[in-house]
């Protein structure tokens, strides 16, 4: 489903955010992407969405190789991927409802479908009451949940979640994790960046650790920190 092949990405300014990364994530997997601040996690997501282009190496999403994807096809790539952005990236002049509806309008869903699905989704993240609010009228955690709702509104094949629980209390976090788990069980590939060791340690899913852009760990049922479970160093394959 997702495959990085010797991918390197440097930003102007000389920072190498991702260094010679080789990684494969299969269809339907649930992967935690961990690593210290600035280790290149968000950069990986940006590469997958073709928001940034890799310097060297190749990236496959599904059966498409991104560097050879013409730019007018990029929107269609993105429609198959939902992304919960670390900074939410909500549309500031649209209400919560419109923000989520936008993801459906973009793919040309008829108005009736939009009208039916959006309230359902908002209900899932516990924001039915805030449907008419603008993003700046929400608390941090509420904004984060709108971003989550939008990300899977159009039932993407791949869900990228960048710290989806960074602004949520443990109870809400657990709810979101259950939601992600449920989405994953329907066959959606989920990749999640997080610093929340509690969640990682609890879920025991595949953990990929980056450090200064280098893959340092790829463990089948890992903990947040390298623990007693033996480290399975996988070379671009599934652990």
């Amino acid at each position: 489903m997702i495959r990085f092949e010797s991918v390197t990405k440097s930003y102007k300014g000389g920072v190498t955010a991702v260094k010679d990364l080789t990684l494969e994530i299969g269809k339907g997997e649930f992967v935690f992407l961990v690593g210290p601040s600035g280790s290149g996690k968000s950069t990986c997501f940006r590469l997958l969405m073709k928001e940034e282009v890799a310097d060297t190496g190749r990236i496959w999403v599904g059966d498409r190789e991104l560097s050879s994807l013409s730019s007018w096809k990029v929107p269609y790539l993105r429609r198959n991927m939902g992304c919960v952005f670390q900074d939410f990236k909500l549309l500031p002049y649209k209400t919560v409802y419109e923000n989520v509806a936008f993801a459906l309008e973009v793919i040309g869903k008829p108005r009736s479908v939009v009208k039916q699905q959006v309230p359902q989704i908002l209900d899932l993240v516990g924001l039915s009451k805030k449907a008419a609010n603008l993003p700046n009228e929400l608390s941090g955690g509420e904004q984060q949940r709108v971003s989550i709702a939008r990300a899977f509104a159009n039932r993407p094949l791949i869900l990228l979640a960048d710290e989806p629980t960074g602004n949520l209390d443990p109870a809400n976090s657990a709810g979101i994790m259950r939601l992600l788990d449920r989405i994953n069980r329907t066959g959606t590939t989920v990749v999640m960046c997080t610093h929340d060791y509690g969640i990682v340690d609890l879920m025991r899913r595949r953990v990929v650790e980056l450090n200064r852009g280098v893959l340092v760990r790829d463990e089948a049922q890992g903990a947040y920190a390298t623990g007693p479970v033996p480290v399975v160093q996988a070379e671009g394959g599934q652990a």
Partner: protein
Amino acid sequence: MALHLGYVTRETAVSLRRNLLMTLAGILTVAVSLFLFGGVLLLSRMVDHGTARWKNGVELEIFLCSKSTAEPDSAKPACRSEASEGQIAAVRTELEQSPDVRRFRFFSKEDAFNEAKRIFAGDPELLSNIDPEGLPVSFRVAPKQAELTEKVAAHFNNRFNDGIDTVLTAKEQVRRLLAGIRWIRGLFFAIAGVLLASSLFLIVNTIRLATFARRREIQVMKLVGATNWFIRVPFMCEGLIQGAIGAGLAFGGVYGLRVILSDLVDRSKNLFSAFYVTGGDAIAIGLLIVAVGATVGAMGSAIGLRRFLDA
């Protein structure tokens, strides 16, 4: 590409409203500049009509001897008597056969008097002083090329014995006047041009600022999977609407100006009657204006969106 009409209308309306002041400024400048542009065109049509006499290359007038210029006893070379029919016919034949003359027209005493009446309608005292019989007959001559004017003039000058009094090459003052009018017209075209450029500028800016102010939003829309067209169409409608409304206002203004000018000309009777403008002129100019307005609007949008296209 799924572009619901509802979506486009909604987004365009929202954007126009959000940048209301900017939109108004854009429309206003388009309107003013197009109005000036149209007004200049209108005025120059009037000037064209008014100076038609001096157009078409009429560069010289040959005045034959008249009763009042005849000085039978003068010592200097001068007209001895009024030009005879035969002399007039001779000059006509000469003009017809000259290879340098493109066109000419005979002006009888009556024609001359009519013209005087027209020109000096405002001054009855002076007119009453003019004796039609004393006016000279003349030929208005257009040479093949403007450069030949002097040659033709020299050919006919100082031939009192053939009944020719004097040759006037397009009067210096009229030339100056025409030059002045042309110059002022040029100035106005320049002003209209500057204004047009600045309204293009404004539309480009309205669009670019709208995209700039919303660049984060646009980026997010793209990340959610919106195609360029999905985002672009509302902005383009914005530019078109501004251009169109501005042009509409200008059209109205030009038509109003035409009505007012016609009225003025009518009321001023003879004094300006040569300076008329037809309804057809006004409509042609109006259509040109609307076309220019639409172009400016569309171009503005296109240029304003260009940077965003790259992204």
